[in-house]
């Protein structure tokens, strides 16, 4: 994945996903796609903010660099994905991280709200594993190989 020209990075992915099956599927797809970056998973908004702010149960763990991208499910228990998005994009530091909404909901209202609140992409989870794999492949290629992320400069 890396070429000599590219500065080695500390890329990582934060997955905010409550569904164990979806998480397992994503991991499976990542494996198929030979994703080598660390994938951190949290199950709800509170945990996500704790993780990102190094609070709560994460305060006792070694501080990690911020994730390169966040994959966000919208329908979450407790603090909803929409609210997390809003909080992330209100935070001076966290707003720098691209947020890719990855959800089942295709309501035009949700799509609009998410983009309005600063989502960087909106992806619908299909009931089709092959297509899902293709979508994630494109997504990762786009974010990690096509665009330049802030994480590219962190050594």
């Amino acid at each position, binding site marked *: 994945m890396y070429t000599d020209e590219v500065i080695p990075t500390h890329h990582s992915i934060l997955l905010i996903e409550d*569904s164990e*099956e*979806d998480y*397992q*599927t994503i991991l*499976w797809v990542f494996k198929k796609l030979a994703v080598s970056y660390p994938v951190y998973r949290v199950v709800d908004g509170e945990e996500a903010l704790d993780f990102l702010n190094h609070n709560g149960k994460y305060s006792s763990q070694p501080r990690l660099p911020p994730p390169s991208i966040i994959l966000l499910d*919208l*329908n979450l228990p407790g603090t909803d994905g929409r609210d997390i998005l809003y909080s992330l994009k209100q935070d001076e530091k966290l707003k720098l991280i691209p947020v890719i909404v990855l*959800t*089942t*909901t*295709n*309501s035009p209202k*949700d799509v609009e709200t998410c983009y309005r609140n600063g989502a960087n992409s909106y992806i619908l*989870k*299909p*009931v*089709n*594993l*092959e297509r*899902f794999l293709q979508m994630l492949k494109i997504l990762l290629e786009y974010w990690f190989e096509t665009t330049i992320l802030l994480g590219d400069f962190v050594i």
Partner: protein
Amino acid sequence: MDNEPSLESLITSDNVDLTNCDREPIHIPGNIQPHGVLLVLKEPELTIIQISSNSYQHLGLHPTELLNKPISVILKKNQLNYLQASLKRENYENNPLYIFTLKVQGQVFDSLVHRIHGVLVLELEPSKFVKAGNSPDLYNHVKSMFSSLSSNMTVREFCQVVTEHVQNLTGFDRVVVYKFDDEGRGEVLAESIGEGISSFLGLHYPASDIPKQARALYMLNWLRLICNVDYTPAPLTPILNPVTAKPLDMSYSVLRSVSPIHIEYLKNMGVKASMSISLIQNNHLWGLIACHHESPKFVPYELRTACELMGQIISLQLSTREENEDFEYRLQIKEVHARLIEQLSMQENYIDRLLNYNPNLSNLINAGGVAVCLDGSISKLGETPDNAQIAKLVNWLSDSVTDDIFSSNCLSKEYSEAQKFKDISSGLLSVAIVRSQKHFILWFRPEIIQTVNWGGNPNKPMEISDDGERLLPRKSFELWKETVQLTSQPWLDCEINAARELKDAIVNIILLRQANELARLNRDLEQSNIELDAFSYIASHDLKEPLRGMHNYSNILLADYANQIDQDGKDKLKTLARLTQRMEGLLDSLLYFSRVGRIDFSVSVINLDEVVHQTLDILSARLEQDKVEVRLPRPLPIIKCDKVRLGEVYNNLISNAIKYNNKLKKWIEIGYFAPGEQTNSNQKLADYDNSYIFYVKDNGIGIRAKHLESIFQIFKRLHARDQFGGGTGAGLTITKKIIERHGGEIWAESEFGEGSTFYFTLHSRKLK
């Protein structure tokens, strides 16, 4: 007086009976009651030209000794002078006045004089008063009566006080106030009786009990006295007045002999003496103060004058008092009306409010019972006919009575069925609130007879069975009952108005409530749409999540565990994956269908031909693949519709036409009929002759007639899923919904095996 019948045909006291008493000329009886003497004088000489035959008894002189003699025969010089002076001074025309107290042969007489038809009538009746001593007493009596009448008394209470005072003053055994209704029927309104005297209170009498000529006399003079019903009338001599050549008109005479019928009536009542005082209101006989005594009784002139004065003053008060009473009732109606309306606007179930709260409909208008009918359900209060009777009555009202307000105090006259419940409803006041819903309010009034308070014992057997029976008060009451059969108390104008006002108010409230209800329904609908929307997306997420899990896992299994699963297991996993996808398809269709029903359409003027060509472009690959010939007889019109949705309609219909065709040479025809254009004898098409009818026709497999309706049901399939390319089975349902939301209709015609035609209209009006 000029057209009086000739003497020969006159009904007199000798030939009067019950059949002709209303024609008895009671003002010219030719007789007087014998307790006094009547003299008729010719002016100016004051010669006696007629005299009652009992002159000897009182004056010691026989008629023959007095006739054609000057009055000075019995008057002293100073009395004669006084009389002559008075005649010049006072107006005696039809106006009997006391002139002096006369002493003749040791007897004292009150002398009353009046002039009628050019002759002077002098009546002498025994005076039992020593004037000076009694006048203050009378004055005080009258005064005390008036002070005991208070302004807030009802007419009935007022009359009660009057009877007590009159009884007190005169000492009669029984004093009653008798009131006439508009038709002349009488009711004993108030009564004052001595010990052991039977009560007449509450009795009713037919109008015929008092003949009209008697009523006329009651209007002329305010007071009549019969001292002793057993009297022998004293005839006048001569019978005909020499000046007028007619019998003396005794309309104003205090001694006038009364009709034998009346005497009989009094005798039957057990009355020996009677006095009556007219109560006159606005030139109309309102009623009488009637006094009865069980033994002969003479009431001297002075006392009678006091009674007459009472009668006149009471008469003056009646109008105001009745108006007050009316006013108070009207006020009550207004107040109850206002409170009812107030309650109505607060209450959901206003019929319950109208009947079961205080005040309610029965407080608004005096009635025996009330019923509120709405769409066949009947709510009742008080005495009402039964439900079946009311239902029938309401049918009659809604079919045969055009006015919204109906009132009758003799319902059976118009609605003969009412005889069956006359006791409860001889009178009906009804308002149609909403005619189409058979929404009526009915007030019922009982037959008057049912409401009458009988003073005595109505079941007591008759004791007298001779001819006199007819003239018994009780017999008279029976007769009265016949005259008021099937009749209720009349409905007053203010009551009818109150009913009308109530109707208007209820209609307004109903309308307002319907408007509110509509607004509420709209809000609810809006809310439920929002909720449904939310539900749709929640469902799409929540139902799809496990579905996706199943799908993904079965695929992961297939990919990762291929070596550990045999072919049969792999096939089943594949089926599982496919089923999850089909399930997703169904969910999507369902969600889309629900959205098509709710989302706003953007209707604009669209060239339908473009829409069809765009659709054909989208479907071009399939059309080519299946080698389908598309026939477009002429360009489609420009029409108002939602472009995207119409595109979906054509997409669905054309896709189906491609799909369900097994012919070698397939074709699809897309066309329309302009309004009035189609000449098809088909009824369905004829119904829409005034609209555009669009169609998509194919030579496909066709649809059996029995399925022509059900093809529009959601997820309804006529073929196995794998046949004809599958699909969720929501396409036609969504199509139908789109058409219906445009205000049109879609239907199919088909010849099985030969092909189908789908017709649809937009914004159509069915011809019927």
